[in-house]
């Protein structure tokens, strides 16, 4: 077991487990946390999982975990693994089963006070208009050709079909299309699972949430992002659905043999991987990118449905609704990015598993209208507390491979949550706080209770205080639909 004495504090809120801690570590491992978050992480196997990531071939500098760290399978949730494209590996387990699970934020010209009185109606309409829940299918059925286009073009396909606008693409990470996707690398089983799930939310922690911008911390950046106090905004959190799950399942299976073939030793089989520059590694990347594109198309269709619902419910109440995209980020992905290693620009595969890209000012991958200030970093919290909009920084580029946290992070098991919390009571409690919630099941709602999550303010404070991302706005929930 790892204890605090095995770590050294390298700066405020940054702890390092030295490479010497375990003989199989190739680099140190770093954790961003305050005292309380660190103590929580030490209670389960999160830190051990973080240390395991530092054993992967080709890892450079250090592997990382963000303050929303919690135990996953393979790497911890909140993990960041940088690996050289030349000598390193790519690992499906280090991306996760929900490839490109991510979140987008829509701004509006609507004041929260205008919609608060009709929040029941809005939530009910969203529940009707946005397919959600366990294994729910939608009304988009993809032909073979459409499926291939979705996999290779992502959001661009969705926009070409009338789901949203070109402006949405400009404000999506990778413009909603991760290059390198190849439909042929995605199995027919995965395609079959994805055939009727485009434009569906799914279940678990996925949601659509209507929120109010409660506080602005950085007026200048908030203006650039089009955010203001009292504004109604909408969050959409979903991923690549069954298609992405199957892609991960397929390649965790297939790469078992690659591990033997390339003589890779692993401390945890869920970290199964292949050299990035190998036929197996290239195939996984091509399939993973396809699943990522499916997820972007999915959120694009979901956001379109949200707009339609809002148009319908708010017609006559608010004329110019202006529901436009602030940004869309992914928090389960592997991407090729360039960072200086030993003074030389080096291409790395950055695995982010429950972690958000947080590119700073001046980066060409940040949309032109945000480039001067940096990328919006979207941090959804739990449904009873708050969510944050932050902005990426130069410090993130230097210290965390351009990465920030992705949410509050779980602290209570699903089993414990459903034993301690009743879904109906929770709905009532939230209603008393002015938050209207509808879920697919009481049990599902209980598992997602605010008490099951870490304190999002505390998590965000760590990334803000270390300068990895700066606070721009705090958003509180008004109405939530849970899958």
């Amino acid at each position, binding site marked *: 077991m790892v204890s605090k004495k095995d770590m050294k504090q390298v700066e405020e809120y940054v702890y390092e487990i030295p490479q010497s801690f375990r003989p199989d570590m190739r680099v140190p491992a770093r954790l961003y946390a305050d005292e309380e978050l660190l103590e929580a992480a030490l209670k389960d196997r999160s830190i051990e999982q973080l240390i395991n990531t530092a054993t992967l071939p080709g890892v450079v500098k250090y592997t990382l975990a963000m303050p929303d760290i919690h135990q996953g399978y393979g790497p911890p*949730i909140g993990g960041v693994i940088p690996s050289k494209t030349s000598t390193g590996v790519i690992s499906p387990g280090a991306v996760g*089963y*929900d490839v490109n699970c991510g979140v987008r934020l829509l701004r509006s010209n609507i004041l929260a006070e205008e919609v608060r009185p009709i929040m029941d109606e809005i939530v009910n309409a969203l529940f009707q208009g946005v397919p959600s829940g*366990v294994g729910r299918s939608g009304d988009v059925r993809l032909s073979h050709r459409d499926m291939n286009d979705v996999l290779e073009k992502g959001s661009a396909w969705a926009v070409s079909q009338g789901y949203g606008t070109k402006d949405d693409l400009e404000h999506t990470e990778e413009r909603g299309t991760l290059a390198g996707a190849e439909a042929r690398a995605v199995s027919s089983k995965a395609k*079959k699972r994805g055939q009727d799930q485009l434009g569906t939310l799914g279940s678990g922690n996925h949601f659509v949430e209507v929120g109010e911008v409660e506080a602005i911390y950085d007026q200048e950046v908030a203006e650039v992002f089009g955010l203001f106090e009292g504004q109604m905004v909408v969050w959409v959190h979903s991923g690549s659905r069954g298609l992405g799950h199957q892609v991960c399942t397929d390649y965790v*299976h297939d790469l078992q043999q690659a591990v033997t073939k390339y003589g890779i030793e692993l401390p*945890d089989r869920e970290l199964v991987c292949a050299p990035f520059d190998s036929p197996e590694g290239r195939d996984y990347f091509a399939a993973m990118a396809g699943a990522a594109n499916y997820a972007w198309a999915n959120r694009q269709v979901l956001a379109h449905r949200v707009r339609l619902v809002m148009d319908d419910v708010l017609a006559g109440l608010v004329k110019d609704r202006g529901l436009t995209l602030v940004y869309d980020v992914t928090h389960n992905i592997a991407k090729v990015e360039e960072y200086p290693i030993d003074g030389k620009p080096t291409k790395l595969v950055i695995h982010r598993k429950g972690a958000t890209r947080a590119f700073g000012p001046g980066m060409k991958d940040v949309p032109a209208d945000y480039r001067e200030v940096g990328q919006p970093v979207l941090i959804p919290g739990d449904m009873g507390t708050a969510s944050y909009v932050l902005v990426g920084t130069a410090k993130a580029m230097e210290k965390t491979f351009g990465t920030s946290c992705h949410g509050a992070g779980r602290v209570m098991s*699903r089993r414990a949550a459903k034993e301690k919390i009743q879904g109906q009571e929770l709905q009532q409690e939230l209603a008393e706080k002015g938050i209207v919630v509808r879920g697919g099941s009481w*049990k599902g709602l209980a598992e997602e209770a605010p008490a099951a999550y870490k304190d999002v303010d505390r998590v965000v404070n760590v990334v803000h205080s270390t300068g990895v991302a700066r606070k721009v706005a705090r958003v509180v929930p008004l109405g939530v639909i849970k899958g």
Partner: protein
Amino acid sequence: MSNERRGMSEGFEEVEHTADLAIRAYGRDMRELFANAAHGMFALMAEPSQEPACAREVSLEALDYEGLLVDWLNELIYLHEVEGETYSQFTIETLSPTKLKAHVIGGPTRHKTRAIKAATFHDLAIEETPSGLVATIVFDV
């Protein structure tokens, strides 16, 4: 009755995992372990189907028993999702360390209670104990 005793008599039990779900499955032999793991997983996912109305054949190859167990559960997740069926009888016809053939019986899914994305290798080891075989399987949900 302790959780473990109860788990052993039912063949499986749910165990704690911070972010995801996990079950511990028991079996007097490997075939029973595989069948109980499938029972345990479907207990998390859906209400049992009323009438056995459909049958599927499952045929898999993997590197070892652990690999087969993960593949077996993932194949059932796949069938459950794309066929809209929930299975309640699992007959393992052939089982070697690298091959599995099984016959599963179930019916149309009545009510899904949870989506499981996949069975994972995390912490997975099939262990021999004095009272039989035990495996803990962590599911991504």
